[in-house]
């Protein structure tokens, strides 16, 4: 069973939970930018929650299904159309054999996750099916989809198969806004900033620039940040925003030459020579991937304790989703495994 790509959309790629353990060699985690949305689509459909899906940015693809197949969407709102007929988001749909699935314009959010019964069955590379485009690794031939690609689909798990028309409970349907707050733990190299600049960074609106992708989100519109003038340390480079090349945490915010902050996301470059001034908390990383270009963001300074509280709330919400969709078993197993390793 397979899916033929008629039109690829703006930037559509195969993603799953991502690959861990290779960042020290420059291979980032990759995986769905909005992990919660990916999991909600899979769980709704009765897939394993980390089955590979299609991540569709801003403009969806047009796909022909060679055989009848159930699907579900998560994340951004783009009305799915089967042979031109509109259907709801966040609901299990059946695409008949030979039918074409397309999408309307994005109404809210930036990335839709398309789960198909059985998952997208590209080969695992370094433990994941996720696409890492810079490294030409994983996914479909290591790149975003192109017209003419034929995607293999895995064997559906008939035991957990969801009924057509099953809807994501309202509590888990995402609510998108036009203005967002992103919580940030300050630190790393923010001591290199002038104090006034550091404070203002958290008081102004920043808007998402057109250079916003899986590697990083760039922001504009705020007052440029000033770094304290200093004798550059040996090996760092001339600009006051330069450091001796170091690792970049996922979610870290760098400000090259002080002008435009960049949040690194799941396809991050793993290191480099620009000072980072803080890190977006893990609970807000899903949201970053749902912000459209030109939308506004306020960075909110939080403590590590607050970040950990938000992390706990995120984990509880994910667990509630599993319970609501009848797949809480997987997590109980994970917890048992975690305890066994401790």
């Amino acid at each position: 069973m397979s899916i033929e790509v008629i039109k690829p959309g703006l930037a559509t790629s195969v993603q799953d939970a991502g690959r861990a353990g290779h960042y020290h060699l420059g291979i980032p985690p990759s995986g769905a930018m909005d992990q919660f949305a990916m999991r909600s689509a899979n769980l709704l459909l009765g897939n394993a929650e980390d089955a590979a899906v299609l991540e569709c940015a801003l403009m969806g693809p047009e796909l022909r299904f060679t055989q009848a197949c159930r699907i579900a969407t998560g994340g951004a709102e783009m009305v799915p159309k089967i042979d031109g007929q509109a259907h709801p988001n966040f609901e299990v749909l059946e695409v008949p054999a030979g039918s074409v699935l397309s999408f309307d314009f994005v109404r809210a959010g930036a990335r839709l996750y398309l789960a198909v019964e059985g998952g997208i069955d590209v080969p695992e590379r370094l433990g994941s099916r996720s696409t890492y485009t810079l490294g030409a690794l994983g996914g479909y031939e290591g790149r975003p989809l192109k017209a003419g690609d034929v995607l293999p689909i895995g064997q559906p798990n008939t035991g957990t198969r969801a009924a057509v028309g099953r809807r994501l409970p309202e509590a888990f349907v995402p609510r998108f806004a036009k203005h967002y707050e992103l919580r940030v733990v300050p630190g790393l190299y923010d001591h290199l900033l002038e104090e006034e600049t550091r404070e203002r960074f958290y008081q102004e609106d920043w808007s998402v620039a057109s250079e916003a992708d899986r590697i990083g989100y760039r922001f504009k519109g705020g007052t440029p940040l000033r770094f304290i003038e200093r004798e550059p340390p040996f090996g760092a480079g001339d600009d006051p925003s330069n450091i001796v090349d170091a690792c970049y945490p996922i979610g870290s915010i760098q400000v090259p030459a002080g002008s435009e902050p960049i949040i690194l996301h799941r396809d991050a470059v793993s290191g480099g020579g620009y000072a980072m001034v803080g890190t977006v908390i893990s609970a807000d990383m899903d949201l970053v991937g749902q912000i459209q270009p030109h939308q506004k963001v306020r960075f909110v300074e939080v403590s590590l304790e607050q970040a950990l509280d938000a992390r706990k709330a995120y984990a509880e919400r994910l667990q509630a989703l599993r319970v609501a969709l009848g797949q809480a078993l997987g997590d109980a197993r994970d917890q048992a495994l975690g305890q066994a390793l401790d």
Partner: protein
Amino acid sequence: MKPSTQHDPGQAKSARYSAAGDEFLFVELSEAMNLEAFFRGVSITSRLAERKIPGVTEICPANASYQVRYDPDRLPLARLIETLEQIDAEVLGQQVQRLETRVVEVPVLYNDPWTHETLMRFRDRHQDPSGTDLEYAARINGFASVDGFIEAHSASPWFVSMVGFVAGLPFMYQMVPRERQIEVPKYVRPRTDTPKQTVGYGGCFSCIYSVRGAGGYQMFGVTPMPIYDPSGRQPHIDDSMIYFRPGDIVKHRPVDRSEYDAMVAAAEAGRFRPKTAPFVFDLDEYREAPEAVARRVEEVLNEH
């Protein structure tokens, strides 16, 4: 690695721990690049890896810093920092003087046509639009000619001090005294294109771009040697897909176009084998006589 109890009198012992969100800990050992900070980082991170601490999920050594990814649900930050401080004290108390590693010869076609074409395309983003990256780097480092500069770049060996940026890219730090370190600024604005396997330079680091893509380092040449292999066709690269590891020692060897072409053909056929040999690096030996270490690197490669 053989531990010794000797202290390094010049060693800065401070470390700066900074929580990066709720999943990463960033540790700066030195603001400036130096071999001691690199050695200390490699020693701490390799000992941390040996301990296999539950909750530590990624250990990333860098030039003069390192980063640990951890699961705060299983390992609280305070406990992680406590562990690292303990390991750091061990390392500082019993400075690892020796590193069992390997030397690798990297053939380089300096002044090649592909980086030349690329650097000409991005001249408006460069400090000196009238010359080439090599001419600029030679001039600002006080070399009378590009040939003299290439000689300096290829005569003394380098430590791979970090692997990253993109898949498998090695950052390399040259084993010469501070006054002989080459220093070059990055492009004024980064390029959107760099040929695959470009030998680049920024700050005090040489690098090899593993894939084609954006970049800000000056471009000096290309190597025919594959260093990243997602397709699994290169016999010298294992399942990690990545050739270099921090701690590797690299010696650049200038090659001409015909040798370069032959090596590219060999690599395309999956028959390229880099010249490499085991090597024991001794920090004390290096401090006393860096030239002797450089000679030993050369000898080991020639015996191979």
